[in-house]
């Protein structure tokens, strides 16, 4: 059987090496999308993101990748946003300055409230409460590293969360063909691979 391709949006920041190696190890080929014409239509898209929201958005826009993501997903192509990639799905972020997101899922991005125990960035391994029966909520561990979190307008779009001090942090979201995860599946050991496989095989 010929391997399927996964589009990975490659806009110049962050660690796409690890996510692409994870995807390849699950039996898929990666197609790196650096400019709009690189995109393979009707093939799943992964939108990674490391860095600050304004910087990520600026680069997406500069490379005209924001429009093609919106157009392609409007046709029903499945998309997974990872970390900042998930935050980019929202309407706005308030990181550093108010910046418009892709507006694919209704909501905003705001700073996590810290306290003495629950510091910001939220860094480390957390157990996620999933709606999804594929994961045992007492045994899973996912790796997080982020200072901002999404606030969803519609709670129905939340498929998993963690409690962190005073915060309830949505850790995975879904609206129709649009998926997102705040944790890094490519850095979350076996559980992360299972999550990623779930999306790729869908």
């Amino acid at each position: 059987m010929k391997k399927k391709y996964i589009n990975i949006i490659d806009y110049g920041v962050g660690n796409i090496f690890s996510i692409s190696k994870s995807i390849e190890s699950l039996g898929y080929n990666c197609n790196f999308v650096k400019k709009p014409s690189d995109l393979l239509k009707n093939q799943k898209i992964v939108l990674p993101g490391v860095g600050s929201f304004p910087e990520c958005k600026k680069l997406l826009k500069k490379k005209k990748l924001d429009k093609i993501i919106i157009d392609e997903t409007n046709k029903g192509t499945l998309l997974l946003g990872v970390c900042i990639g998930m935050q980019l799905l929202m309407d706005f972020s308030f990181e550093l300055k108010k910046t418009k997101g892709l507006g694919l899922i209704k909501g905003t991005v705001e700073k996590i409230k810290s306290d003495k125990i629950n510091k910001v960035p939220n860094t480390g391994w957390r157990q996620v409460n999933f709606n999804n029966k594929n994961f045992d909520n007492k045994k899973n561990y996912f790796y997080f590293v982020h200072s901002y979190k999404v606030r969803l307008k519609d709670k129905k779009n939340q498929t998993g969360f963690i409690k962190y001090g005073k915060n309830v942090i949505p850790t995975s979201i879904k609206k129709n063909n649009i998926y997102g995860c705040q944790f890094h599946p490519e850095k979350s050991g076996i559980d992360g691979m299972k999550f990623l496989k779930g999306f790729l095989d869908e």
Partner: protein
Amino acid sequence: MKSLRNFRFISRLDIKDEYLIKSINFEGLKKVGLAKDYALDYYNNNIDELFYIDGVSTLFNKKFIKSFLRMTCEKIRIPVTVGGGIKTINQAKKILKSGADKIAINTAAVKNPEIIKKLSELIGSQSVVSYIEAKKNNVNQTWDVYVNNGKENTGINIMNWIEVVQKKGAGELLITSVDNEGTEKGFDYELYEKIANIVEIPVIANGGCGKICDVIKISENVKVDGVAISSALHYNKIKIDDLKNSFKKKPFNIRY
């Protein structure tokens, strides 16, 4: 739900070319073995994170990037921090592109703290680790910041320095006690206690860990967010499994 403190176990690997090396108080380097074997072994045994540091600044030679960093990151699905001689934003980008998640900065930040600000704006605070070598100053009973593998005193007081790097946007502190490094006599508890009072971002303690009880002692008495262990793991004095199991009944969030 009661809020438990999160605690991470990190393995620190000092690397030269493709070899794992180890020193005592940063003196007298010794080759331990092939670094990739150790990195993969720690990953397979459930370590939470890896910290690669190149104390002799061979970081940017092809051997390090190709035969070590890329090769291990291809197989390792946990976070990797890389430090040692990173001077420019472009070098940091290259490291991240090769599979690392966080950049540890020491000397370059002492020379110009703005690099922390620039890096955190570009790659995000969460990916910028301020790596600090601290040595006790017995005259004024505080700690000075050192660079160059604990050889060169910058004359900067650690408390002032932490305030600076926090303000510039560092997302984590990895603090090595130069006095305890490689001695396996336990952590410098006093140092981390002082720091815990002023710090707002996660702190990882490093230097001096020889036994599991050293880790338990620091976790119970000082508010640090994790430990980085080197020789005790390299020489098999601590097994990751045993270490994690010893935390089973303690009030921490641990990844098992």
